[in-house]
């Protein structure tokens, strides 16, 4: 690519000087990432005929109704119309999975359904089909408030997610909070630093020229601070997702979001 981000190192170094204790963002100051975008990118997200994430939604709708696996069942055969059965699901996930005694996110739930109900191979992380399904399922919660469940079994995982959010990482030795709680609204190079709310995923990122998951975005941030990213589907990511959902509680779901 012609585009390079070599400026990020000195830009990040400037940030090193600030912040010791992280200030959590008060509820009335919370802003979706969409509010930090240009009016053009906001318009792209707001109009379904212009939002390229809607192409993934159409793929997801087809996948929802397509029979798969040895059971020869489609998602729709058990769940019926996603408009009803999936309404609010993405707004409350990750949820506690009693079978594994661990939290599970929507992508993990899709693959668990494939294994158990459809007797099909799991869909690869970030694959077109998995993103299509999670985007389609996410759309059914659009406009609803992020509403993580009050499930005590999730608490220790969410606490670990919070610790990870505040954990310094990588060669630049930054935590998520250094940028997104202490310096949101300021600039990194020419780009505004958003508050890192996970209320629009999967997103269509202009840089990716495609839809991608929250975990892909978190991996970008991790490589940005020169840390080895966690693996897709790892418990660390699910714990971070749990904490981010709590942090964005009450904000409107925007899936499919568009971000630069």
């Amino acid at each position, binding site marked *: *690519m012609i585009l390079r981000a070599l400026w990020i190192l000195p830009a990040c170094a400037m940030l090193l000087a600030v912040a010791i204790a992280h200030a959590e963002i008060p509820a009335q100051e919370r802003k979706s990432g969409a509010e930090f975008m240009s009016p053009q990118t906001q318009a792209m997200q707001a109009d379904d005929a212009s939002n390229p994430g809607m192409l993934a939604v159409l793929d997801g709708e087809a996948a929802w109704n397509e029979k798969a696996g040895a059971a020869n069942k489609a998602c729709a055969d058990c769940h019926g119309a996603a408009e009803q059965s999936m309404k609010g699901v993405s707004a409350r996930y990750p949820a506690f999975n009693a079978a594994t005694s661990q939290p599970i996110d929507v992508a993990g739930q899709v693959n668990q359904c494939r294994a158990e109900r459809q007797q099909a191979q799991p869909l690869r992380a970030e694959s077109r089909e998995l993103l299509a399904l999670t985007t389609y399922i996410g759309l059914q919660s659009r406009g609803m408030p992020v509403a993580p469940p009050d499930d005590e079994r999730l608490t220790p995982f969410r606490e670990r997610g919070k610790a990870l959010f505040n954990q310094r990482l990588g060669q630049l030795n930054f935590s998520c909070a250094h940028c997104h709680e202490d310096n949101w609204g300021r600039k990194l190079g020419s780009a505004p630093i958003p508050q890192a709310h996970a209320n629009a995923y999967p997103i269509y990122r202009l840089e990716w*020229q495609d839809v991608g998951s929250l975990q892909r975005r978190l991996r970008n941030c991790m490589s940005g601070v020169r840390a080895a990213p966690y693996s897709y589907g790892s418990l660390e990511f699910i714990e971070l997702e749990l904490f981010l959902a709590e942090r964005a509680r009450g904000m409107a779901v925007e899936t499919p979001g568009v971000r630069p």
Partner: protein
Amino acid sequence: MKTQILSTQILNIDPSRRAFLAGAAGAAVCVIAPSARATPEAMAQAIKDFTGGKSVREGGVEVDIPVLLESGHSVPTIVRVDSPMNAQNYVRAIAVFNERNPQPNVGVFHLTPRSGRAFVSTRIRLGDSQKVVAVAQMSDGSFRSGSIDVIVTLPACVEGA
């Protein structure tokens, strides 16, 4: 926020109304990366190829792109041309050029009196801060142009950075 497009149609996949026709063309061609990018001179040549060397009058063509861009990957680009768009006087084509992508050409859009307005909207890639030029071919065979200089920046924490 808009939740559904109700007054309009979003066409879903309908295999019966769609055809994927195998063409006669051969296999994909591997393009060797050119060592040079487009230059203002290459853009001037591409414009000359489009106009057949005829003179181009500046004005009457609006290139609507924000001057400061947060990403060069998908730049909303609108071109409007002053024209009544009737059978006697209309815009035949709008061609868009740039001077610093690998190639100077972006797209050529062919209009008719049935377009109603001399308007086209698309999304383009800009590999760097540069000038974007639109040239309109009018129905009388004359050419007009408009341009804009834009600054391309990057979002924070790009992939593989």
